[in-house]
Every structure is written in C-alpha cells, then in structure tokens.
C-alpha cells in the first residue's frame, strides 16, 4: 500500500519534473556570472584553472563552509561512534588473513598515491584537480594499509593535529589577507606568471590547506568507520541485508 502510494507520488513528481524540463530554453543557461568570470578571472586571480578561481576566489566562503562541513561530519561521526565510556574496542592488527601480496602491494602503492595526491593538490590552480581531488587520493593512501590489514592502527591524534592546523591555516590565510588591507580570504601575494607553479597568489596555499584537511578528514572518517571492531563485522550486516531482502518478499 505504502509502496503504491510512494510510486504514485514519485511518478507524479517525475512527470512534473519532466514538465519543468520541457520548459527550459534550449541551449543552456544564461551564464550571466559565468561569462563574466570567464572574462575577468584570469586578470583578477591569475589562475589558469578558472574553476579554481571560482572555488577559492569568488566563492572562497563556500569552500570554507565546505571544509567545515567535512570537519563537522568527522566530528559528529566520532561523537556518534565513541561510546559513552570513551573506550573503543580496537582490534589487534590481523596480518594473518591478509597475505603477503596484499600487504606488500599496499606498501608499494602508499608512496605512489602520496606523490600523486600531492601533485594534484599542488597543481590545482593549473590543471584539472585541486585540493579536494588530491585530498581524496591522500586519504586513500592512508586508508590503504587499513584495508590490507584490518585493525591496522591509525594515528588519530596526529590526524587531529593535521585536521586542526590545515583548517586553521585556511582561515588564517584569510585573516592575514584582512591584515594586508584586503577582504577576508581575498588572494594576495601577486599573480605571478600565468600557468607556472608559483602563480595565482595564495590560491595554491589555500589548496594545500584544503588538500591536507580533506585528506585528514577523510582518512579519519574512514578509519573511524573501519574501527568499529569485529564484534559487529560488516559481514554480519550484509547477512542481515540478505535476510531482510528475503522477508521483504513475504
């Protein structure tokens, strides 16, 4: 019954959304500010990647909010996952099940991923990519050992330091801009040569902060989720999923 009404309303929604789509002007949106940014961004910010100009320049506050959301999610997650006593049953590293190949290749991949991640972070203002993308790769680098060896410890206090200071660095760069006589988060330190590594003022610095922040947050998040412990293994959940699926047909 519930499913039928849900489907009914959802099909109504789909129909209405299609009606909306029908009324769009063909050929894309007006791009009012988009065009203006395409014209001005290079002069104002000196970053070859215009998306970066938008992310860190024109909409820098959004980005601040965004890393704050990641931080909030990580904090909330650890708040949720921490039991009241503060004790977390961290399992001992279990290398027996992993096997040599897995462990060695994860060790092999670690520096590669680290390098790639840093590269992408550093070239965020020049090429596709940037702090977020690079940060995710960094997180993957740190998460890989955890996948290979369940129970592999993660240095949470270290992560907290990185999290805190990279986020603080982002804001502090913004505040320094203020003391330079600019607006909050306004890029400064000159434009440099367009397309070179040291260009676009503080944008690369901001991106480094973002990259570190995202990397630390994500690895923290993933590690938190992974450390729930063997008392409640993922396997059990998936078994339960099966049985629920079975009962749904009854």
């Amino acid at each position, binding site marked *: 019954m519930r499913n039928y009404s849900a489907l009914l309303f959802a099909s109504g929604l789909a129909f*209405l959304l299609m*009606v*909306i789509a029908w*009324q*769009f002007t063909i050929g894309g*949106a*007006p*791009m*009012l*500010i*988009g065009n*203006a*940014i395409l014209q*001005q961004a290079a002069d*104002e910010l000196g970053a070859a990647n215009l998306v970066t100009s938008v992310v860190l*320049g*024109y*909409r*820098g*506050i*959004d980005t*601040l*909010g*965004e890393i*704050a*959301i990641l*931080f*909030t*999610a990580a*904090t*909330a*997650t*650890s*708040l*949720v996952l*921490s*039991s*009241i006593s*503060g004790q977390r049953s961290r399992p001992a590293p279990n290398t027996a099940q992993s096997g040599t190949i897995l462990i060695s290749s994860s060790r092999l991949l670690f520096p590669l991923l680290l390098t790639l991640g840093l590269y992408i972070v550093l070239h965020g203002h020049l090429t596709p990519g940037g702090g977020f993308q690079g940060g995710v790769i960094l997180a993957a680098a740190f998460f890989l050992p955890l996948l290979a060896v369940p129970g592999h410890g993660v240095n949470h*206090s270290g992560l*907290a*330091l990185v*999290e*805190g*200071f990279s*986020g*603080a660095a982002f*804001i*502090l760069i*913004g*505040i320094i*801009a*203020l*003391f330079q*006589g*600019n*607006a*909050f*988060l*306004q890029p400064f330190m000159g434009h440099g040569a367009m397309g070179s590594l040291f260009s676009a003022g503080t944008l690369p610095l901001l991106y480094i902060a973002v990259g570190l922040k995202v990397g630390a947050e994500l690895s923290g998040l993933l590690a938190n989720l992974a450390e729930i412990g063997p008392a409640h293994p993922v396997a059990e959940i998936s078994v339960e999923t099966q049985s629920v699926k079975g009962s749904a047909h009854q």
Partner: protein
Amino acid sequence: MNNIAFNIALPLLAAFLLPVIHNGSAKASRLVGPFVLLAMCWFAAAYFIFIEHPVALALGGFLPPLGISFHLDQLSLLMAVIIPLMLLLLWPYTNREGFREEALLLLLAGASSGMALSGDLFNIYVFYELLSVASFGLAASTHNGAAFAATFRYLVISGLGTVLALTGIGLIYTQTGTLNLAHIGQLAAQLDNNVGLAAFALIVLGIGVKAEIFPVNGWVPEVYATAKPRISALLAGLISKLAVLAIVRLLVVAYADTDALSLLLVLGILGIIWGELSAWRAKDLKRMFAFSSIGQLGMVLVAFSIPGEAGMFAGLAMMLHHLLVKPALFMLTENWSGSISSLTGAARQSPLGAALFILFALSLIGVPPFPGFWAKLIMVTGLVGADDSLYLLALGILLTATVIEANYLIRCAIQLYAPADENSSQSAKHGRLTLSISSALGVVLIISLFSITPLGNKLYQIAAEASNRSLYINTTLSNAQVPALRKIQ
C-alpha cells in the same frame, strides 16, 4: 577592529583548533567556546550599533554578483547578535563529556551566522548544510539507540531535503544564470513562471525540513524527545528560525508578488492545524512542546505570507517571541521528562520552574499583557488587513488553534499545581543551571513586556527595511563594499 567575516571565521577556526587545544589543555579548551561566542556577539553588535547599514559586503573581495556578498541589514544583524547570545545561554557549561559537542556548537554558531548574513543563494545552502550536519551530531549526542535511530530518520529527511533544495538552486541558476539573491531579485521576472515557482517550492520544502514546515517535519517529535533539552531548545528556538528567514529572504527578494505567498500560507495553515492538534493529545512535555513548536512555526509561516510590510512585521514578532519562549520551555523539560500525569505536584518541588512554566505558557497563548499577545495582535490585524478569504480562514484557524493551545498548556499547569499523589515522579526538581537559563529568558520576556512600544517600533523599522525589495537589490548591486579591516571610532 572589526570585520563581519570574523563572525564566520572565528567560530570555525576555534572549532578546527578545539581538538588540538583539548589535547594540550582540557581546561583551556573549555574557555574557548564562550570566549569566541562573546567575541562574535561583540562584532555583530558593533556593526549593528556603530556602522551604517543596510550595507552589502563583498566578503571575498569580489563585488557581487560575481563574488559572495553578505547582506547586513538590521534583521540579519539582529539575528547575528541573537545567535551567539542564545548559544552562550545554552552552552554546555557542565558538560564533562568532551570537546566534540562544543566544537559542533561552535560550528553551529558559525553556520547560523552565515545563514543569517549571507546574500548568496548557494552560500546560504552551504551554511544550511553545515548547520544540518552539526545538528545531526548534536541530536545524536545523547548516545542511546533511540537517539541514533531518531537522528538517522532526521538525516534521511534532511538529506532528501538537501537534494530538493539543490535541485531548486540548480533550476534558479538555469533560469537566471546567477546565484546572488539581489541579482536574482533583479531578474525576478524570469522566475515568475512554472520553472521559477517550482524552484521556490523545492527550496521551501528542502530548507523547510529544518524550519519544521508541515509536512516535512516528521522528525520533530522523535528528535526532540530523544535529544538533550538544550539541543531541542536550540533546534526549536534558533535553528528553525534561521531556516524560515532564509525562505523569507528568497520570498521577499525574488517572489514577492507571486503565488509563492499562497504556498507558504497553505503550508502554514496545515502546520498550525496538525501541530496543535497533535500537541493536544501528547502525553509528555517534550513531545507536547515539539508538536506545539510545529504549530507555532505554522503561525510564523502564515504571518510571513501576509503580503507587504505587515506580513514581515507580524512574522518577525511571532518569530522572535517563539525564539524566546520555546527554548525556555524546552529547558524546563530537563527534569520533567516523564509523562504529564507524573508531574502532579511538581510545583512543590520546583516552585520557580512551575512559575516560569506558567509565565511562558501564558505568553505563548497570547494572554495580555505578555509580549505574546502583542505579537498575536499584530498578526491578527495583519491577517484581517490582507483582505482575502484565505487569510480570513487562516485567522479563524489561528484563533481556534490558540484555544487548543490554551487547553493543553493550562492542563499541564494545573497538573503541576495539583497535590502530589502516588503517580507523581520523585525527582521533579530542576537543576540550578536549567532554572537560571529559563529564568534569564523569563527576565528578558518581562523586560520586553515593559518596553513593548520601543521594541515594536524598532521591529517595525526592521520589518520595513527587510521587506523593501528594491533597497535590498540596490544595496547589493550598486553599493556593495569590499570590507577591509576597519576600526570603530
């Protein structure tokens, strides 16, 4: 030395560093939060008092509509002052559990300030999300199964709401090609069509999840029943108002003369009916207040849907009154969490608590001469003045709902003063902190009772400014300033 960006930057910075400070010195970390909130309060108040407004500040140094601008008029600055004050009041001073909750509260403070001040649609959305995530964490901080389940359900509704709001923003962007509210307002003619209105509906229902708009408020009773009273007070009192304000801004600037008003009106009417009826039958205080706050927010929505200044005035009056009363009532549930029938004789154990309950209940019902009455009077005259049969229907429903509200609130009050029997719970005494929070709000209520006229005049001025669409657009698009650090004389 002042810059409104500090109101965002400082709490976020403090939250980022709080774990680090906590590792260093737990005691120092406990001081950070209140200090930052005080500073925020000062910055906002300084803008309110010393600096000419309304003004639009291009926060990142890029003039609107390209960059993000903050719109500082009396309304947004008022909210920016109220937010840290409210958080200071509801701060977990006796919290021994750790720094995470404090960090979340700081993030909440930053996000709320951002939502109140921002003049950019997507920026509002980002802060709204920040606010959501922080509130999920806070709602789950009770650490029991019920709280987790309730928060999960809250998160699912909220997440879908996010998707809808994002879709709405996308639609607006496809129609206008801009994100700045003032710029959108300038292009409002392009939005007065199916697509534009659909975008409005999507945003209203998306953000409305936090604003407890009917019917997307299924999470309200369960979250408020499981969260700590402090958190419920914060969510019902402050956060819901910010979401409402975001909707109202969009309404005033871009959809002032469209069907959007009637959508809000209809949703508001339904909210009143549903909320008050449900509250009538609630058997414990927490859920009663939860339902009643749904009803109250319905009233706020109805008030805002009155066209013109009258609507803004009525809406602000109702909103600020609820902002004051509901947190106090929620705080009183701290030790009155049992069923209402077990509260028999609780007035003996906590006489001040019971007296405060009566005070706030009377004001909520709208008994003269309490401030709630004046808010309701403004709203009622506004509704009659709108001169439309739908608004008269809303008036009838509002008044009937008040009768129902009086019924359940006074029923509780009488229960509190009834002689104790074997049913009554043994520990209905309030903690000192709880009582002082509620008393502080009570004192504010009583002070405002004696200064209704200046408050009303000020509020009318604020409302007139906030409902002035061309002023908003001109301020942002013609007079935006790049805010360097500035000294206050």
